[in-house]
């Protein structure tokens, strides 16, 4: 039996970064707002020292993540394979519970560049016709950097972004990233202190003629009070960052930056252990009327709402749209339909270097600490000459920070026994990594749909991911591998090992790649090729807004959280200034 609760002005599905931000914005506008979170409640008390300093619980058993038993995804590389479920997470780490992925993220807070938001236009202007493969579905976001800039700026103040600006109002600043878009303001806080790996990387890349800058970090470098009155303390490099909640009030998260301010408001409430199973369509064919959810006791509840905000992790948002039959599912054969279209991920590569002469103390580490070059971004060099569109940033960060995951022994040496033990002791703390984080273009045969075989405990189909690496993106990664080898040549380690994909390699979900899953419910200006319009408003239901990186038409080299947050504020601005007064489509189709 389904119970119906009293209606609310707005229901938010998922209480991570986007749900928290939209909660602030809509309660500011005077709406009664209810957030429904599938996972458990998490407050700052859960992160008090020493609780997070537990590598087995958080770093290995991944206890802050969505439980695969509750809902996982199935993966195949092409349409001829049968998809198999991720039985426990290996290739990415979707968050769960209040704070979502924002509670366990690393804290690398980037903006997109102007080009990254307009890749289609850039491609049309840059490449000869026929250069890009026919099956590449790249598109523009439909929103420009100039439009998003004030929202990036505000979120950077919410998060206490620490680092060095490279371009303030068009003026280039030494030591910052000269390839970033112009900012109206410098970073709120200065960069984190520099580790040994930072210094080695900076020296080597400068010698190569490149432009190193500090990782833009949402682990704050100094005490900070944000616009909501929330306070952050300087990061102490505790070494428990990515996959962990912050034990020092230093990593920006919904808990440290938003939620205590939001929970004080009488017109906000939230319910945990409440899993939304359907968005319910109205009979008018133009709106939705609320959501169905199952509470922690297994009761099915209908929650009516005038406004539905889908603020889940990208793959979960796409699945809920498919299960709810809101929007036309994508069909890769006819290249029609939209839900599940343009699913993208992240192309990564890495190098590990051993230095007998250096001692790095790898447990001294902040997730957002590191040094980066953007010299090989999509628009900073002639990628056509190398046969691809796209780019990557190349970086270092000190680590790995744990003990279980921190042991490294020489290639080809035993993995157990006395020799392993001697190597583990002698080599610990003598390693430095280089990484490339690269763009991923969208392709016609890379997409999300519902799995025909595997189901969740409710009997609903799991999401199926059809994903493989493509030649364009692998060429890009190989190019970045060569650039990392240039850095290795400067640094002259005793030996190094590489994990760099090559053309012909296929997606390997048995190893961690990235949690930057993007697309599948993309934004745009044409309802034939996007799920939501440029305000993140659903084309087929004007009172449904879909937030998050599911809106990215293809993935960029820069980490998604900054753009996810800026898009949320952008969407909120148009809901508050235009939609609430006059509910209806915020734009007409521009096919």
């Amino acid at each position, binding site marked *: 039996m389904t119970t119906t609760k009293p209606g609310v002005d707005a229901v938010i599905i998922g209480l991570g970064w986007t749900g928290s931000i939209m909660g602030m914005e809509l309660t500011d506008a005077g709406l009664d707002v209810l957030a429904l979170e599938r996972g458990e409640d998490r407050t700052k008390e859960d992160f008090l020292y020493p609780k997070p300093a537990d*590598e087995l619980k958080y770093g290995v058993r991944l206890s802050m993540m969505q439980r695969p038993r509750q809902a996982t995804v199935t993966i195949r590389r092409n349409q001829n394979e049968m998809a198999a479920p991720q039985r426990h997470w290996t290739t990415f780490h979707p968050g769960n519970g209040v704070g979502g992925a924002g509670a366990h993220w690393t804290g690398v807070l980037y903006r997109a560049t102007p080009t990254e938001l307009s890749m289609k236009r850039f491609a049309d202007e840059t490449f000869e016709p026929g250069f890009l493969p026919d099956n590449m579905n790249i598109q523009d976001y439909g929103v420009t950097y100039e439009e998003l800039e004030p929202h990036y700026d505000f979120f950077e103040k919410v998060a206490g972004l620490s680092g060095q600006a490279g371009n303030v109002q068009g003026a280039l600043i030494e030591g910052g990233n000269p390839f970033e878009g112009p900012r109206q303001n410098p970073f709120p806080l200065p960069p984190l202190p520099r580790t040994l790996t930072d210094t080695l990387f900076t020296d080597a890349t400068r010698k190569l003629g490149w432009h190193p800058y500090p990782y833009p970090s949402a682990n704050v470098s100094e005490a900070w009070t944000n616009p909501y009155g929330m306070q952050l303390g300087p990061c102490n490099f505790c070494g428990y960052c990515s996959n962990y909640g912050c034990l020092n009030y230093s990593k920006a998260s919904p808990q440290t930056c938003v939620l205590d301010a939001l929970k004080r408001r009488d017109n906000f409430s939230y319910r945990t252990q409440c899993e939304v199973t359907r968005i319910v369509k109205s009979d008018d064919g133009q709106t939705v009327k609320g959501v169905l959810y199952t509470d922690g006791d297994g009761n099915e509840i209908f929650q009516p709402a005038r406004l539905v905000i889908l603020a889940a992790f990208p793959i979960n948002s796409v699945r809920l749209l498919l299960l709810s039959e809101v929007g036309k599912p994508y069909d890769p054969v006819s290249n029609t339909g939209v839900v599940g279209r343009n699913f993208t991920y992240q192309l990564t590569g890495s190098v590990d270097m051993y230095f007998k002469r250096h001692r790095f103390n790898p447990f001294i580490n902040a997730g957002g600490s590191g040094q980066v070059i953007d010299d090989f971004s999509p628009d900073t060099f002639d990628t056509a000459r190398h046969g691809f569109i796209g780019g990557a940033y190349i970086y270092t960060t000190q680590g790995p920070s744990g003990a279980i995951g921190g042991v490294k022994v020489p290639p080809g040496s035993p993995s157990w026994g006395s020799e392993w033990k001697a190597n583990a002791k002698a080599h610990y703390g003598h390693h430095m990594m280089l990484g490339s984080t690269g763009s991923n273009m969208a392709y016609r045969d890379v997409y999300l749909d519902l799995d025909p075989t595997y189901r969740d405990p409710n009997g609903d189909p799991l999401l199926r991911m059809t994903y493989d690496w493509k030649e364009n993106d692998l060429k890009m990664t190989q190019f970045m591998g060569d650039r990392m080898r240039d850095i290795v040549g400067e640094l002259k380690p005793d030996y190094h090992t590489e994990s760099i994909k090559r053309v012909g390699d296929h997606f390997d979900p048995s190893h961690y790649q990235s949690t930057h899953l993007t697309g599948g419910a993309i934004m745009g200006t044409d309802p034939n090729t996007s799920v939501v319009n440029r305000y993140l408003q659903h084309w087929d239901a004007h009172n449904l807004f879909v937030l998050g990186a599911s809106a990215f038409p293809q993935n960029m080299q820069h980490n998604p959280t900054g753009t996810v947050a800026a898009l949320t504020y952008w969407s909120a601005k148009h809901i508050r200034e235009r939609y609430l007064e006059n509910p209806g489509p915020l734009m007409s189709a521009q096919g």
Partner: protein
Amino acid sequence: MTDQPNNWQRRTFMRQSFLTIPAISAVASVPLSAWAQDDTPPLSEYYPRFFEPQEWAFILAATDRLIPADDNGPGAIAAHVPVFIDQELAGDYGNASDWYMDGPFLSDLPAEFGYQLPHTPAAVYRLGIKATHVYCQRQYGTSFAALDKAQQITVLEALEAGEIDFNALGVADLPSQSFFAFLLQNTKEGFFADPIYGGNRHMAGWKLLGFPGARANFLEWVDQYDRPYPLGPVSLKGLQNR
């Protein structure tokens, strides 16, 4: 919690959370030293929650080979790695409580698809130890634990290489290298995880590396390049090992 009832299940007091162990050990005669106020009982007084006696003998011997005591310090036995594995297998991890374990199980997929076996970690151990036991009986006429060290190493290398056909030994859907991978991974976890989980006794694993455990506060050390960090580890419960 175990797959089959065993003769230790009546010891329900041992089946409680590991947090109860210090209370039990209050009666054990473990001398407290200045460098590690660790009052867990010696391994000989530990009653496994998951493993049966023959399985326990295998785990003691196998982990001793994987991380032996030697010139570089204590090994898996002194660090109580078997206790860690036993407690993990008796709990949520052993039961794959968070894992997606619905079929169909496509066990013949390439390794890129990750774990696709139909077994919980607890079942992997139960089946893997059983098959290894049958193998040792056939090959050597005795149990793994009764072999000499060189023979034990030979068997472990064969497991690791996938050279022992478990199917022919009566255990289906479990390649020997998969069993070995669990055993090795969990042994290292038990050597390097916080002592609150039963292993890494006296923080022996952390001492080997120079890893400071849960200190988690290093701001003044960020720019001390190429200098060894001077302080020994602390654990979640505040134990120290200078």
